């Protein structure tokens, strides 16, 4: 994956300066990270309005505050496991700017009085992280020792309770939620888990303050975020943008559309499909009408000649294969849901097919130790809304995607040309 320029006006923060991952240029640009007390950190995060960048978008200060108020010596974990196949931003950040992440980890660990910090990362990121930690050890930077734990390459391995289990030396599967991780996490200690990108923002915030932080983004959702843009774009990769950025600017930052676009999957595989509306603001408020959220910054562009239902069935099939294997409704329900979507996608029509998609969606919702079934259902339901016309087409035996519809049986297609559709680069006016 390549890193490309930020959208116009958005500016670069996490990806500013040298991106070779070395310590010297990092120290030359930023100097050492400041030390904060717990109260200072909570105030800083609250004033800045920083939200977690791992997907849930929870206010960062609340978790820190909860851990400060819990009994016991806290543990801090940076989560860079990134089990989401459509996301590469944590991996990119750990390769290009590992010292921002590690600075953030130290700021938080010291503010909380932790004696142990952990980084939970994918195999692919481990070498970069270890190299960075070695350089910091030689420079005497890290007051709180950092342990690296490798996350298995599974979708649910990055879920908070799965992470706690993995760092505690147990299998990386989610737990039934008896206590909050902030009260009893790693080996029973109060535990703060923050996504590595969130830690990177904390490293900058600690230096430049909340006012600076709020110069980018919206008043509800300040700051920048890393987006992983893939699918039908010219230059797939990781870009940095401010919340509220127009969808088309985000796609343009990844080289622009490779062809005319039909829809985009936003947030991640647990995210939501939205129609290809160029002016849609990429923010919590902007995406709410579509049941989508910025999530982990994932943007997957679907070409106008692709089949959204086929892509949805493929993703649902992937997610069904990624169940942890613990919870009956998820083990049984997700494969059934994926197979039913597969029938719809392949136009194996039978009476009640779409009603069965919704029945199975409702059946698995909320019935697991983690939100894997709920997230899968969010994505599926958004597809049934956004590709509503294609659902009707499939039930009638054809498909709105010209390349996939049997020419013999398909009604004559008018060009799929609502104003909302992007035109691809090099495509002339019609």
């Amino acid at each position, binding site marked *: 994956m390549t890193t490309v320029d930020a959208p116009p006006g958005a500016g670069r923060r996490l990806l500013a300066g040298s991106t070779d991952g070395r310590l010297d240029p990092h120290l030359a640009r930023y100097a050492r990270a400041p030390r904060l007390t717990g109260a200072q950190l909570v105030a800083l995060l609250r004033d800045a309005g920083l939200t977690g960048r791992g997907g849930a978008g929870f206010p960062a200060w609340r978790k820190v505050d909860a851990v400060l108020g819990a009994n016991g010596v806290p543990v801090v974990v940076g989560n860079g496991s990134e089990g989401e196949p459509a996301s590469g931003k944590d991996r990119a950040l750990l390769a290009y700017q590992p010292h921002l992440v590690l600075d953030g980890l130290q700021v938080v660990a010291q503010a909380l009085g932790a004696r142990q910090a952990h980084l939970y990362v994918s195999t692919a990121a481990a070498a970069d992280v270890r190299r960075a930690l070695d350089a910091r050890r030689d420079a005497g930077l890290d007051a709180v020792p950092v342990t690296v734990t490798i996350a298995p390459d599974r979708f649910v391995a990055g879920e908070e309770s799965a992470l706690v289990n993995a760092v505690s030396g147990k299998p990386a599967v989610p737990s039934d939620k008896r206590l909050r991780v902030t009260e009893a996490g790693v080996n029973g200690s109060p535990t703060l888990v923050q996504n590595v990108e969130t830690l990177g923002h904390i490293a900058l915030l600690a230096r430049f303050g909340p006012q600076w932080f709020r110069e980018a983004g919206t008043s509800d959702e300040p700051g920048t975020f890393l987006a992983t843009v893939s699918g039908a774009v010219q230059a797939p990769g990781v870009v940095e943008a401010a919340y509220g950025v127009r969808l088309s600017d985000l796609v343009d930052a990844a080289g622009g559309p490779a062809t005319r676009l039909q829809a985009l999957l936003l947030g991640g595989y647990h995210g939501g499909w939205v129609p290809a509306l160029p002016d849609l603001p990429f923010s919590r408020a902007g995406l709410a009408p579509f049941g989508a959220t910025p999530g982990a910054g994932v943007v997957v562009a679907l070409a106008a000649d692709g089949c959204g239902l086929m892509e949805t069935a493929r993703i649902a099939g992937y997610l069904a294969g990624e169940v942890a294997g613990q919870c009956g409704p998820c083990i049984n*329900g997700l494969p059934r849901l994926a197979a039913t979507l597969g029938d719809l996608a392949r136009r194996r029509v039978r009476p009640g097919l779409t009603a069965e998609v919704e029945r199975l969606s409702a059946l698995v919702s909320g019935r697991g*130790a983690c939100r894997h079934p709920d997230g899968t259902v969010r994505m599926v339901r958004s597809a049934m809304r956004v590709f509503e016309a294609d659902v009707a087409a499939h039930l009638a035996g054809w498909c709105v995607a010209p390349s996939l519809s049997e020419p013999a049986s398909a009604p004559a297609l008018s060009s799929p040309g609502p104003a909302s559709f992007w035109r691809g680069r090099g495509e002339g006016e019609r």
Partner: protein
Amino acid sequence: MSENRLHIDWTACDGRGLCAELLPEILVEDDWGYPLARSGEVRPVVPAALRKNAERAVDQCPALALRLVGEILNR
């Protein structure tokens, strides 16, 4: 706060079906035999009249997968 909601530990439940037999007013079995709240709630409310039956279901669940919890989990 009284603990009047039924929580299912899905990592433990293996769908023996005893709870749905003891609490037919609250639970049914889903397609695969796992308990499903009639109300559609994730943690169904246990009315006072069914409290004793619910406690029995909690005690007798072979997988020890049932608990009575308060409005907010974690306690």
